[in-house]
Each structure stands twice: as structure tokens, then as C-alpha cells.
């Protein structure tokens, strides 16, 4: 495409329209790109941003950030970056002016230009000069720790450097010592950004095994040069890291979490854990320091503890039950938005999957916790009731397994758990028992039948300890039959009042289940049938034949 002069000045209204069209779809986007080349759009945007009285500066910056990636072609990248770096320098160095060059504008500009460079400057060798210029500008900003007025700008500059380090790993490895020094000196609230930056630099050094000395500050901070091993991809790997230095650094980093926000804590831990693994730090150290976060009401902090657990399962040996209990208690916090209460139960299920089972203790614990905490309460939303009923169904599976184990071992304590499975179902279903009189399309009905399905199937398909058998059962005809029944059929006969058919189908279904699983109508199965008829069929009869 050839440049189409002359460049028409775009008014704020034009820019609003252009931005909307770019966001909307490709067709409307082409309306503009057919008249303006990418570089001319960039020039117009930058000149508007640098003007004193332009009202849409922040919107324009966001536009450039979001669409540069799709805007510039390869041969335009360097030119575009040159102009952007010049512009960001002008904005940052402009005297502070609350209207024309506010702090917010400066901060937004460095973020946008950093973002654009990362996205369009994929090839470091091509954009080497621009990258060095930008890093140098950012380092100049951050190199004023604990100064008063520009603390927020320093924090933003640290975030920019962190994104560059993330995009070009080990970019800042050679100046890690300087960054550590800055990190120690910064005492304002911006120190979070310094710490996160330093943590990422260390993370990249450790995970990529780059041989640099962190204590050494012989390489100057500015002028900044991109390290050779980043440019050429040449290896600077060595067989071993300087563990002594790195452990010292880790000791420093692990002192700082209390100043981090929950969001930053999640980021921090995701960086620290791989380092701790490589350095073979004692997992118990992390556990002692961070386990208490599980008792926070911030879901991100709770998830941080789970992240640690999944990396260091052994360190938590013996504490699984208390973690599980805490997760289920989180789901009881009425103050939390529903999605987090549901998430807590999912975490519990994921957690159970991770906990190693030793001698059936795991199942015993699940049952103990389940009997105490899984019953839905009156004011639990139906979604939560549904998930808790799933957990009760899971308890039933555990009880069945324990019961089978006991039977195999000749234990006489079989009757207890077996009765409890039915009781679990009975007590659990009470929470949605309105399905017995509500119309068949009610949510309570859907939840109740879903639960019944889970109890019936769960107890059958998981009663074998052999997981391959379970899988086979999952794919069996009976499974699909039940699935069809629970997913669709249940509602149709109700809707058309074909109660008789419904009962027949379910009666046949129960028999079929027994046949497929290779058992006869034993005492237990008969119990299930009684239970089923009592809980579902009888009320339906009432519904079908009102007195």
C-alpha cells in the first residue's frame, strides 16, 4: 500500500470513531486503514498526544497499545518504534503539568510503549537500539529510590522493566546487583514493584541457569546494553549456580511478603516456588511462612497456599485434614460471593485428588469431614447445595469402599457405614425436597434427580477399587442409559404426566444396574430400591393423583 497524502488532521470525534471501528470488527477497521497508512495513523496519534490541549490522550495511548500489533508490517516496525521511543521520552521529560502532562499520562505512556515494543519487537536484534533506549529511560526513572513525588512513576517503571524481563528473559540479569540495591533502598509503597521485578530477574537467572554474580555491580546500570546472551541466543549456561548468593537473595525476598497486596502475593509466589525448588530450599520454610494465608478471607491468598501445597505435597503430611476442613469452611462463609464459595468446594475436590492415600486414611477423613460439613444448609444457594450434594455422593463412594474393605478384612463393622450411605442420601436430599411438590421443571427437581443419579451411579461404579473397571463402567450401556434418563427423560414423562412410564423405566433401570454390575438383588440393592421409591416415586404418585 502506498502512502496516501495528504494527512488529514483527525479531530477528537474522528479519533473516537476510529477507535470504536477498530474495536468493533475488521471490516470497519479497513475503512480507516484504506485511507491512512499505519505509520501515518501513528504520527497523527503521537502528535495529538504531544499537543497540550488534546482531550483524548489516554484513549489514544490505549488504542495504540491495543492495536499496534495488528497495525504495523515488518518493515515498519523499526520506524514505528523510533517514533514511539522519541515520544515517550518527550512525555516523560516534559515538566509536570496536571492538565497536559499529568502523572497519569506519563505512566500510561511508558506502559503503552513498553507493551508495543514487546509485541511488535519480537526480534531483539532488529529492535536492539530501541530496546536499549527504552530500558535506559526506565532505569533512569527507577534509580531514585525512596524519593517523594515520583514514587508512583517509579513503581510503574518497575512494572515496565518486569514485563521486558518477562518478554526477554535475563535481559536484566547483568544488573541484578543494582536492582537488589534499589530494592533494599526503596521504602515507599512502590517497593512492591521493585521486589516483584527483582524476584523475576532472580527467577529467570535460576530457571535459565545463567552464570552471573548477583552481588557484583561492576556492570553499570546506565548506559544499558542488552547482554550478548540475550541478543545472540548464545549460551551462558554453566553447570551450577551460585547457590550461596542465591540463598542470601531468597532470604531477603522471603522477608518481604507482608508488604505485598494479595494480587502481588500470587505473582510473587508463582515466581518464588520454582526458585525454591531449584535451590532445594526446605519446603517447610515456605509452609511455615505462608500456610496462615489459608485463613484469610481473600480467595487469592487461599489459592496461594494451595499452589504451595501442589508443589510441596510432602511438606504438608499430616495437615491434609485441616486444609480440607478449612476449604469446606470457606464455602460456608455467607459473606463471600457465590462463585468463591463454589470455587472453594472445587479446590477441595482438586485437593482430595492430590492427597496421597495411605491405608484408607484419606477416605476415612473425607467421610468424617463430610458428615460434619457437607450437608447443605437452608440458605445455601441451590448451586452450592448441588455441589455439596456431589460431595455427599463422593462420601457415599468412600463409605462403600471402606465398607467393602472391612468386609474383605472380616470386620464386623459393615452395617454402620452401609446404613450411613443411605442416610447421607436421605439427609442430603432434604435440602431440595421441595421437588416433591414443585412443578417438574423446578430447579429443585433438577438438583434432586441429579443427586439421585450421582448416588446411584457413584456407589455402583466406584465400588470397585480398580480404576480401569470404573472407566469401563463409565462407558457402559447402563451408564449411558442413566445419563439419558437424568439428562432428558426425567422431565419428559413428568411434563406429560406419564408417571407410570417413568416408574417402569426407573424400576427397570435399577434392575439393569444390578445385572450389569454382576450382582444379584442383594440386601443392599433392595435397600436402594426402597429408598428410591420412597424418595422419588411416592411423591410423584401424589403429584400425579392429588387427593
Amino acid at each position: 500500500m502506498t502512502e496516501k497524502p495528504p494527512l488529514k488532521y483527525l479531530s477528537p470525534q474522528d479519533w473516537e470513531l476510529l477507535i470504536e471501528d477498530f474495536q468493533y470488527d475488521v471490516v470497519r477497521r479497513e475503512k480507516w486503514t484504506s485511507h491512512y497508512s499505519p505509520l501515518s495513523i501513528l504520527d497523527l496519534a503521537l502528535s495529538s498526544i504531544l499537543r497540550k490541549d488534546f482531550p483524548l490522550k489516554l484513549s489514544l495511548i490505549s488504542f495504540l497499545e491495543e492495536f499496534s500489533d495488528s497495525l504495523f508490517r515488518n518493515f515498519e516496525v523499526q520506524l514505528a518504534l523510533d517514533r514511539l521511543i522519541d515520544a515517550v521520552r518527550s512525555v516523560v521529560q516534559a515538566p509536570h503539568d496536571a492538565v497536559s502532562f499529568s502523572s497519569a499520562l506519563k505512566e500510561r505512556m511508558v506502559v503503552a510503549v513498553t507493551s508495543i515494543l514487546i509485541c511488535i519487537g519480537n526480534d531483539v536484534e532488529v529492535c536492539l537500539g530501541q530496546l536499549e533506549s527504552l530500558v535506559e529511560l526506565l532505569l533512569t526513572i527507577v534509580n531514585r529510590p525512596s524519593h517523594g513525588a515520583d514514587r508512583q512513576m517509579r513503581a510503574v517503571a518497575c512494572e515496565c522493566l518486569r514485563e521486558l524481563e518477562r518478554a526477554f528473559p535475563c535481559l536484566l540479569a547483568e544488573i541484578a546487583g543494582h536492582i537488589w540495591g534499589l530494592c533494599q533502598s526503596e521504602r515507599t509503597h512502590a517497593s512492591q514493584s521493585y521486589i516483584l521485578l527483582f524476584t523475576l530477574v532472580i527467577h529467570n537467572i535460576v530457571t535459565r541457569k545463567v552464570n552471573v554474580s548477583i552481588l557484583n555491580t561492576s556492570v553499570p546500570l546506565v548506559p544499558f546494553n542488552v547482554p550478548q546472551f540475550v541478543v545472540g541466543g548464545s549460551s551462558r549456561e554453566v553447570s551450577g549456580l551460585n547457590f550461596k548468593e542465591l540463598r542470601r537473595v531468597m532470604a531477603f525476598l522471603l522477608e518481604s511478603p507482608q508488604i505485598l497486596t494479595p494480587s502481588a502475593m500470587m505473582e510473587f509466589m508463582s515466581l518464588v516456588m520454582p526458585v525454591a525448588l531449584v535451590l532445594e530450599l526446605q519446603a517447610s520454610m515456605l509452609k511455615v511462612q505462608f500456610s496462615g494465608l489459608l485463613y484469610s478471607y481473600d480467595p487469592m491468598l487461599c489459592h496461594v497456599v494451595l499452589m504451595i501445597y501442589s508443589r510441596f505435597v510432602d511438606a504438608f503430611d499430616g495437615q491434609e485434614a485441616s486444609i480440607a476442613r478449612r476449604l469446606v469452611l470457606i464455602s460456608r462463609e455467607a459473606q463471600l460471593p457465590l462463585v468463591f464459595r463454589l470455587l472453594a468446594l472445587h479446590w477441595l475436590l482438586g485437593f482430595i485428588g492430590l492427597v496421597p492415600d495411605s491405608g484408607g486414611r484419606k477416605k476415612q477423613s473425607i467421610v468424617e469431614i463430610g458428615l460434619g460439613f457437607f450437608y447443605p444448609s437452608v440458605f445455601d444457594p441451590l448451586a452450592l447445595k448441588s455441589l455439596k450434594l456431589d460431595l455427599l455422593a463422593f462420601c457415599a463412594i468412600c463409605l462403600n469402599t471402606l465398607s467393602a474393605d472391612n468386609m474383605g478384612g472380616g470386620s464386623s463393622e459393615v452395617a454402620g457405614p452401609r446404613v450411613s450411605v443411605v442416610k447421607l442420601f436421605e439427609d442430603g436430599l432434604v435440602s431440595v425436597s421441595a421437588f416433591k411438590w414443585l412443578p417438574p421443571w423446578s430447579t429443585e427437581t433438577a438438583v434432586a434427580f441429579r443427586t439421585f443419579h450421582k448416588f446411584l451411579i457413584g456407589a455402583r461404579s466406584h465400588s470397585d477399587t480398580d480404576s480401569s473397571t470404573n472407566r469401563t463402567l463409565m462407558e457402559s450401556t447402563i451408564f449411558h442409559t442413566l445419563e439419558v434418563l437424568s439428562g432428558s427423560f426425567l422431565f419428559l414423562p413428568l411434563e406429560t404426566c406419564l408417571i407410570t412410564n417413568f416408574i417402569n423405566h426407573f424400576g427397570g433401570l435399577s434392575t439393569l444396574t444390578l445385572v450389569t454390575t454382576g450382582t444379584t438383588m442383594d440386601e443392599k440393592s433392595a435397600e436402594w430400591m426402597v429408598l428410591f421409591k420412597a424418595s422419588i416415586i411416592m411423591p410423584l404418585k401424589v403429584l400425579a393423583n392429588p387427593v
Partner: protein
Amino acid sequence: MAGCSIRALWILNNFDSVVFSRRFPVVERQWRTACKAENENSSNDNLNYTVYPLLPTDSELAAAFVERKKREGSARGFGIRVTQSAEGSDSWVDDPITRHIISLFINKDEERENNMLWPLILHMKGHYCILVLPLVEPQHLKAYAGVCRRSDCGNAIGVPGSLSSLLFDLPSITGACMVAHAIGDVITGDVVEPEVVVSASPSVGGLLDSLTGSIGISGISTRTKPVAAPVAASTTSSTAVIGAVTSDAPKFGSRPLDKDALRTFINSSMPFGTPLDLSYSNIFAIKVNGFSSSDLPLPDLKQPAWKPYLYKGKQRMLFTIHETVHAAMYDRDEIPDSISISGQVNCRAELEGLPDVSFPLTGLNKAGIEVLSFHPCAQVPEQGVDKQAVMFSPPLGNFVLMHYQAFCGLGPPVKGFYQLSMVSEDEGAFLFKLCLMEGYKAPLTMEFCTVTMPFPRRRVVSFDGTPSIGTVSTTEHLVEWKIITGGRGLTGRSIEATFPGTIKFAPWQIQRLPSSRSFLGADEDSDFETDSTNNMVNVEEFLMEKMSKDLPPADLEEPFCWQAYNYAKVTFKIVGASLSGMSIDPKSVSPLTCDFHLMLKFNCSHDVTRRWVQQLNWFEYGYICKECLAILIHSLPLTITFEIRLFWIFLF
């Protein structure tokens, strides 16, 4: 293991148009890089599945959202697997969380198999739908696509690749949920800090303005954007009090989207898409006030990111205990009432520097606390709380120091009886007999108490009746009885209140079910028990039959189908002490003495009928559980009589 990064977010209005979108190119670059690596290896992959590498445009996203809405019955979706659930869709997964964490198919008409966008956090606030797309690994997306096609429904517990395992492995989803909620609060202006009540005393000074001035942030009180009113005064008028306590109601007004506030929040809270701080109060305070050279940091301590400003001025600490009671009462000797409490301790610490505060938890032992969760600033030891004390380093402004769930030592503050009996198809007689504050001694004071009888599906034509105390008013769909009004609180004694009356409704009209009925498999033209009218033995039975035909299914977010019951809501406020027994000893909070004030909120339900249980001919098949008994009690069949379905809710 990744932390949390956001690829993009969209806000849609109630016409399903995108009114705001934001993409984070740096995060998107990570996604594309991961996709490239994944797709290069996918030739060896059994799934032979390539992941969708691009973000949709706004129009593509809106179209996909509308398509899902049609397919899944509503914006949230079915949540559990139903007849209409298509294999590969969210409801096929058969998990209610798929109403909050959804997938969209971009350009579905193109029949590509790789057009799934997941996980999108869906948060609905006011008239807006907020969609937040966090970064996950392509393999996670593939795993979810697999979960959507599993034949077995629900959670496959302990199976690798199950939905629960994914949610456990993906903190980015948790973070994205937090982002969605924070954005929801920003766009609806619902960013109020927790309430801290201050006793009116000369030392407090000019309340709000002087308090905000005393924070030491110049100009903070001149904020024009929705930020916290830092302190609420107990001397405010009763109207203001009512307004304050009912602030939980969604603000569904036609407030236009404040895009500037939104951009400010997003640019500061996650400049590159990775959340750094989701506190709107902090972000807005920094935007408005900035920093000056005179704001010197402490010489020896690092200032936390969650406390950008330090307090200067007179030092004090304020605490407010705030409790909501959920109660189910049965009026039956053999079944104990069930009352549980959700409480929180709100705090405002006006302390210079960065002190650690020791907060005694001795009150908790008496309170029968079941669950206890703390603000992130609290330092909870590894084994959890030892119930002696907890240390915390307070942030600036009002914050919730802890949440708790507790059992209740006292009886319900409102006991009573409510019965509504339909004497004809459109006319009913009702009776209230209430006892307020029985067993409640000073300083517990009931400031106000109002009973409302909502009739969302009937139009009230006329009403007749006089209560023994208070005033009555009606609107089209409710009757409101104000028993105690502001200004005359009830302290140190109990009162009885009765209210007999009759109510007449407009003739019942068949209402088309909202489309949600068909979501759960009902054919809207079906004739559910149509010819049974001849068998009806009384008018109530007949009426119930008619009304149940278009009873909409409850949302999964509701505890039950409210519209299936006749109930009364009682709203009231009690101040003076906590119901749980939770208390704070001002002398034992270090380093300073504190001023504290207590406020209670109640949320009770009460089923008061005794007779119906005997009439319930299938009661023998009911199952009674201590915790869930109320549901059994409430779940009366429509085919019996109207008055036995009484359901009394005290809601706050």
C-alpha cells in the same frame, strides 16, 4: 506455575452490546507463543486439536455471547445438564460453576473445532455483564474442551483433567474472578468501605469531614467519584440508617458507565494485565492526591503496597461488630430452632507509622465461632488461629478485620405466627401474631422493625385490617407493616404485635412462563394437569394448581423458589451488643484503647404452622436432617392447602 494475568475483558450492557473492552497485548503475546508451541506439538497429540490463537473483536464476542445465551437458555446458562444441553457446551459439564466460568464459541458458523474461548469469568452487576478472560495454558483449554464432551456428568472426583483439578491448578481463574468483582463494583459505584459507627462525642468532632481531614491526605474529602464514606455516624437520621443497612440491594439504576473511572482503575490495578492491587480506594486516592516530596517514607520500614499513605494526627482505633442472623424456626416442640450468624468486625485504625496491633480473640470462645477468616493484613500462624489473639498491621481507612460464622446464644428477636388463607380465588384472610425482643435486655435496642408481605405474582386491589401497633401501607405487589419506626427504639422490654386483615387481589391471569421454564425441559405448550380442575375440592387447591403452571424455576443462585411460597419479610435493626456473644475488650487491644460500637442485622426465616405436618400424607417419606430441616418444612406440596404453605422469612 503461572500467577494471574488477564488477556482481555469486556463489558456488555443489557442489550448484549459491548460497551467497553480492554485487551492486554503483552499477555496476548504470551498466549500466542504458548499456542504456537502447543500446536507445533499437537501433531503427536491424540486430540489433534489446535487452539484458537486470536482474541475476538467486540462484535464477534457479542455475537458469541448471544449465541450462548440462546443455546444455554440465559446469560448464565443452565448450570446443570438438562435436555437441551449440547455436547461440548458448558451445561454438558453439569456443574453450577459453569454459570460463572463460561466458554464462548467464536464465529460458531464457521464450524471450526478450535473456536472455544475459555475460561471467561462472567460477573453480572447492575445492567452489565462483565467478562474477564484470564491467561491459561493451551493444555488447560484442551482439558476443558474434553470435560465438555465427557459422557459422565458432574464432577469426576480425583480424575486428572476434571473441572475441579483445573480450577485447583489455575489461580488465574481465582484472580480473574476477583478482577471481575472489582470492576463490577467500579462500574456500579458500589465501592463503599465497610461501615464503622462512631459514637457521637465531643472528641469525635465534626464527623465525616473532620475525620477525613484527619487522615492526613489533603483533598481526599473532595473526591467526586464513588469512594467510601470513611465513617458513618450513629447520630444520623433513621432514614439514613435504613438507607445504610439496605445498601446491599443492587444498584440497578440507569447509571451510565463511567469509562474514565474504569480506565483509571484498570490502568492502575493491572497496567499490563497482571493484577497488582484491586483496591479502588487506594487507586483513586493516589490518582486524586498524588504524592509530594514532603511525604517521606519511614526510615526503617518498608511501606506496604496496600498502604500508600501514612496517617498523621490524633490516634485512635474504632471497631464495629456487624452481624446478620439466618434463622429457621419451626414452632414445634420436637424440632429445635436453627439460628446461625454471619458476623464481621469492621475496623478503622488511625495510627501513625506502621504499628502491629494485637487483637484479643477471647470473645470468640464465648461466641461459638465456627468459621473465622481474616483480612490479609492479619498475621495468622501456620496452624490457624489459636483463639488468644491475632496480630495485624492495619491499612488506612475502614476495613473488615475478620469474618466469622457463629451459633446464636439468644433466641430469635422476632417470634411469631403468620397465616394467609384464601377464602376465594382472589381474596385471602391473614393473621400476624408477633413477639418482639422477648428475652432481650438493655443495652440491646431495636431501632426499627418492618414487616412486608410481597405478592410478586398477584396485584393487590384492596386491603383491610388494623394492626395493634404501627402503621400499614400497600403498593401494587406488597403490603408493608411498620411496627417500630425510627426515633422510638425498643429497649429493655418485649412487645406483642398482632395484625389480622383481609386482602383482595386482581383476578388471576395466566402468565406466560418466562423462557427459563423451557430451559429445564418443559414444553411451554404442554398441558400439565389441565383437566384436574374438576377434581379440585377447594378453591385454594384450584388456585395453587393454576398458579403452579407458570411457576418459574428458581435461579441456582437462590436458596429455593421464593415464588412458590407465601412469606413475609421482616427487616429490623438491633444495636447494643452482638447476638453471637462476640465482644471486644477495649483495654486489651494494644497498642491503644479503642472505641467500639455494636450493630446487628438479622436475617431469619420462621415457619410457624403446626397443623400441616399432620396433614402431610407423605410425610412419612420425608427425611429429617438437623441442618436442613427447614427445607423439609418448607417443601409442602402444592396440592394440599394454601395456608399450610406458610413460610415466614425475616430478611434483612
